[in-house]
C-alpha cells in the first residue's frame, strides 16, 4: 500500500512539474474568474452614454429583488407590476427612460417571469401587453402556465408514462411562486456550463500523456519491466487521473460557487427553480438544483477523464488523444436536439458537454425503461459511472499488455 501512495505521489509530480501544466492551470483559473467577473466589468449605457457601472447596476437590481423577497407572485403583485410599467413610455428603448428606472425596474424580475409564461409562439408578451394587463389575465396566470405546460408535454415525442410523470411533478410545483433573490444561484447555473467545458479541456490536455506520454518518451520499457509496472503503477495512474480530475472539478465548482455567492449574495438556496425557469416541471429549489447540477458536472468530467486515459493507453501520442477528446467536447455544442425524437434527445443528453448544461439536466425528455420514466439527472451520473467503470479496466489491460515492438 505504501508503494501505491509513493507511486501516486510521483504520478502527480509527473503532471504538475511540467511548466506547461502550470501555465494551463493558471490560464484556466484566470478564464474561470473572468467568466464571472466579466459580467460586472464596464458600464451600463443609457442613450449611448455610460451611466452606472455594471457592478452598481447589479447591486441596484439586487436591492429591488430583495425588496420583493417573500412576496407571492400573485395577481396583486402582477397588477402592481403592470401599474409600474404603465408609467413607462414605450416609444424607443424604454429601459433607457427615467420612468423605467424609477417605477418599472424594481419589478423587472416579475416581468421576466411573466413574459416566459404569457408568451405564445405566435404572440410575444410585450411591455405594452403588460401595461394593458387585465385582472382576469393576472388571475389566470398559473392556469395559463399549467395549460401551456400540458400542451407542450402532450406535443412531446415521449411515452404516456413520461407525460404522466411530468404532469405529476408539475402539480407539485408550489404556486403562487414566492419571490426570492437568487441571482447567485442563477449566475452559478449559467457559468458552470462554460466552466465545465473549460475543466474538460484542461483535464484532457493534462491527462492525455498519462499513458501515451510513456510510450512517446520510451519510459514504458522501464515501467513495464519493473515489479510494479504492470499492476500497482497502472492502478496508481488511474487513481491519479480520477482524483486529479475530481479535484480539479471540485476546485472549479467551488471557485465558481464562491465567486457567484460573494458577488451576488448567498441568498436563494430555498427559492424555487421556477424563478429561473418558470416553466420547469421540477419541484426543486435552487439549492437542490445546484447539488444535482454539480453531481452531473462532476460525473461528466469523470467520464471525459476516463475516456482520456482509455485513449491515452490505446493511442501512441497525447496529441491524438487531445484531438479526439476536443472533438467529443466541441461537436455536441453544434448538434441541436429534436423535439420529435426522445431517443435522440436522450442520447445527446448523455454526451459529456450536454451533461454540463442545466437545460439538459432539467430536460423534460425522461429516460424510459420498460414503462418507467427516469429523470435525466439520475441517468446522467449513472451512465457516466458506467462509462468510467468500463473504460478504466480497458485502459488497465491495454497498458499492461502493451508490446514494445
Amino acid at each position, binding site marked *: 500500500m505504501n508503494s501505491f501512495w509513493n507511486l501516486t505521489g510521483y504520478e502527480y509530480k509527473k503532471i504538475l512539474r511540467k511548466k506547461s501544466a502550470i501555465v494551463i492551470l493558471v490560464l484556466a483559473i484566470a478564464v474561470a474568474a473572468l467568466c464571472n467577473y466579466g459580467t460586472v466589468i464596464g458600464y451600463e449605457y443609457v442613450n449611448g452614454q455610460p451611466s452606472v457601472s455594471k457592478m452598481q447596476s447589479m447591486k441596484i437590481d439586487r436591492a429591488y429583488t430583495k425588496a420583493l423577497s417573500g412576496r407571492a407572485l400573485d395577481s396583486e403583485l402582477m397588477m402592481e407590476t403592470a401599474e409600474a410599467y404603465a408609467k413607462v413610455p414605450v416609444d424607443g428603448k424604454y429601459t433607457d427612460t427615467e420612468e423605467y428606472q424609477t417605477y418599472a425596474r424594481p419589478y423587472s424580475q416579475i416581468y421576466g417571469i411573466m413574459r416566459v409564461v404569457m408568451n405564445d409562439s405566435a404572440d410575444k408578451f410585450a411591455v405594452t401587453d403588460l401595461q394593458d394587463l387585465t385582472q382576469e389575465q393576472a388571475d389566470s396566470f398559473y392556469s395559463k402556465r399549467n395549460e401551456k405546460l400540458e400542451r407542450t408535454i402532450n406535443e412531446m415525442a415521449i411515452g404516456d408514462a413520461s407525460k404522466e410523470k411530468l404532469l405529476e411533478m408539475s402539480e407539485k410545483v408550489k404556486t403562487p411562486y414566492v419571490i426570492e433573490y437568487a441571482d447567485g444561484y442563477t449566475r452559478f447555473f449559467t457559468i458552470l456550463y462554460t466552466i465545465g467545458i473549460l475543466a474538460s479541456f484542461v483535464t484532457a490536455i493534462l491527462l492525455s500523456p498519462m499513458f501515451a506520454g510513456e510510450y512517446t518518451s520510451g519510459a514504458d*520499457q522501464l515501467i513495464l519491466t519493473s515489479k*510494479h509496472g504492470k499492476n500497482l503503477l497502472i492502478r496508481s495512474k488511474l487513481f491519479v487521473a480520477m482524483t486529479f480530475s475530481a479535484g480539479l472539478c471540485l476546485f472549479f465548482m467551488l471557485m465558481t460557487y464562491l465567486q457567484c455567492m460573494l458577488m451576488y449574495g448567498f441568498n436563494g438556496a430555498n427559492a424555487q427553480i421556477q424563478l429561473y425557469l418558470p416553466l420547469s416541471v421540477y419541484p426543486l429549489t435552487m439549492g437542490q438544483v445546484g447539488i444535482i447540477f454539480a453531481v452531473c458536472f462532476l460525473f461528466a468530467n469523470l467520464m471525459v477523464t476516463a475516456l482520456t486515459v482509455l485513449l491515452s493507453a490505446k493511442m501512441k501520442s497525447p496529441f491524438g488523444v487531445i484531438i479526439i477528446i476536443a472533438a467529443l467536447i466541441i461537436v455536441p455544442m453544434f448538434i441541436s436536439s429534436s423535439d420529435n425524437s426522445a431517443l435522440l434527445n436522450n442520447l445527446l443528453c448523455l454526451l459529456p458537454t450536454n451533461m454540463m448544461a442545466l437545460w439538459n439536466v432539467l430536460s423534460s425528455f425522461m429516460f424510459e425503461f420498460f414503462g418507467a420514466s427516469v429523470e435525466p439527472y439520475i441517468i446522467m451520473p449513472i451512465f457516466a459511472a458506467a462509462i468510467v467503470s468500463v473504460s478504466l479496466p480497458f485502459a488497465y489491460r491495454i497498458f499492461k499488455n502493451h508490446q514494445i*515492438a
Partner: protein
Amino acid sequence: MELIVDRLTKHYGDIIAADRISLALHQGVYGLLGANGAGKTTLMRMLCGVLRPTFGEIHFNGIDVNQAEYRDKLGYLPQEFGYYPEFTALDFMLYMAVLKGLPKLRAIEKAHELLALVSLENVAKKKIKTFSGGMKQRLGIAQALLNDPQILILDEPTAGLDPKERVRFRNMISKLGETRIVLLSTHIVSDIENIASTILVMKNGQMIHQGSLQDIIRVIEHKVWVCTVSQAKADELMRAYSVINVRQDEGGVFLRMVCDKRPCPEAVETSASLEDLYLYYFSEEKTGE
C-alpha cells in the same frame, strides 16, 4: 540460477525476427552479437517480458517471464529509454526504486550508492533535461541495478560513454556477472571480447553460435590473413574478400582479411579476433535497422 529460453520465436507478419531460440543461461556475462536487424533487441525485449513471443517460453528458476516475481529479479537498460525531463536524477532513481518495489529507506540508500557508482552523485539534484547523452546513459545503467537484479539485460549500454567511462563500466559489468546473469548487446566488439564469458551470435533471427571466445573464433581459425600490397592489388582483394581493416602504409596498402584460403602470395596468416568473426559473418549485412 538458470534462465531458460525454450524455442523462442517472434513473427512480424512474414518476417521472422527470432527463430526458435533456445538457451540456458547461468550466472556470467553473455555477449550478444549481431548486425542491426539480427533480432538482438527483439530477443532482449522478449526476455524482459515487454514483447510477447509468437511461440516459446521463458523461465527463470521456474518463474514465468510474465510474473511480477520475474520482473522483481530483472534489471533492464533499453537501447533508448525514456526519462522525465523535469525530474532530478535522484527523483528518477527514487521513482524507479518504488516501481521496483524497494522500501523507502532502502531506495534512498541504493539511489545514492548507484548514483555515486556511475559518477552522478554531484548532479543528483539536477534535472535530467540538463544532462548530456552520456550522463543519461549512466543514469540508465544505475536504474537497472536498483533492485540488485539476478538477470541484468543491457541493450547497447556503452553507447554515448567516453572511453574512460566505457572501460569503468565494462569492469563493473564483469564484476556483476560473478553473481548474476548479465546479457549484454553491443556493437562495440571489444567490450564483449573483454568481459563476456559466453558469446551469442545472432543472424537473421537465429542463434548461429554460442560459446566462449575461443569456441567462437575457432570458426575462423586459419582464415585471417594480413598483407601489404599495391593499391591496384588492394582494390582487387577488397572486391573479392571480406576485408576487416585497410590502412595506408609506407610500403603500400595494409589489408586484414577473412577468407578460407590464402588470398594472395603476400598474405600471412594471423590469429583471429572476435571482430574478425563479426565482420566475417556480417560483412554483407546491411547497416541500419
